[in-house]
């Protein structure tokens, strides 16, 4: 059970629409910018576009689906850490 029982009725559209609109336009502008610069072959751009398809889902778990789409889905530990950082998208999922 979650603790929202006493939560007042909130207009989430009023609360978040302008913020979501702003972020969506930022994503669109990012895709335009990388395309103009000829950088759409970068796997991160490719994976981002794939993740965008998750927004069309029917269930209220789109954030989870976007995160899963950008995740390494293998299960075994790798031999050696290639460095320390993470890129935000997983190159191994290929272009399919």
């Amino acid at each position: 059970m979650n603790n929202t029982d006493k939560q007042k009725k909130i207009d989430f559209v009023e609360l978040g629409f302008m913020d979501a609109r702003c972020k969506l336009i930022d994503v669109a502008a990012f895709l335009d910018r990388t395309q103009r610069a000829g950088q759409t072959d970068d796997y991160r751009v490719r994976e981002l576009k794939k993740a965008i398809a998750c927004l069309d889902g029917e269930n209220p778990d789109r954030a989870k689906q976007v995160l899963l789409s950008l995740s390494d889905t293998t299960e075994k530990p790798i031999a050696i850490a290639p460095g320390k950082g993470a890129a935000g998208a997983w190159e191994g999922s290929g272009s399919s």
Partner: protein
Amino acid sequence: MRYVEPHAHMVSRTTDDYIKLVQAGCEAVCEPAFWAGFDRSSAKGFFDYFSQLTKYEPARAAKFGLPHFCWICLNPKESEDIKLAEDVLEIMPDFLDSPNCLGVGEIGLNKNSKNELEILERHIDIAAQRDELILVHTPHLEDKLKGTKLIVDAILNQPSIRPERVIIDHVEEHTISIPRDKGFWVGMTLYPESKCTPQRAADMLEVHGTERIWMNSACDWGISNPLAVPEAAFELRRRGQTREMIDKVLYQNPRAFLSQSPKFKL
């Protein structure tokens, strides 16, 4: 409003941040051992760092009336070098005995490598032998899902560790249920870009409920906000959540988990 900041790397923050925390209602700050942003060259570097966490930093916080607690370990970012890791594991017990040390943390994985996993298991063994609480760092971004699963399996493989004495930190929408369904506590980290925004943290609380969960800023030397927890409380208020609900998540929950160590007193 009162709250506990259960995860902050204060050695990399200014004194001004201590003042801001106290003014915002912070009643205790907990500092897990982590990476310095560069690799320390030997176990001596860790000796100095652990001394800072157990002696100098609590004294600095005390000047502002803020109780300071810490966690001791070798961060997974530095566990690829097994020899160095073994040297550090050897000096850990003395620091775990410190009066402000709550347990072993933040251990975990970074790139999900074999050596990282081996050193994680060694830390889990130390925690099991000493009956210590555990605080776990889960990997960043694309590595988080796989790492969270490997970490949960590694801890469950050590039968003497009880999940209610372990917090799995930095969960997001795709990983929150993996540890929680097994009885672990979970932490949501509020970062401006990676990890989780106050809005998403509030969503997860509304979807998953308020049991065995806390929020933290994990502020360090990178882009981060030491006041992220009170700012998330503002988001919860804006969404009509009750004062009782906010107090449970920000104060009572961290106190309940951390009080499993007799050293944690408010």
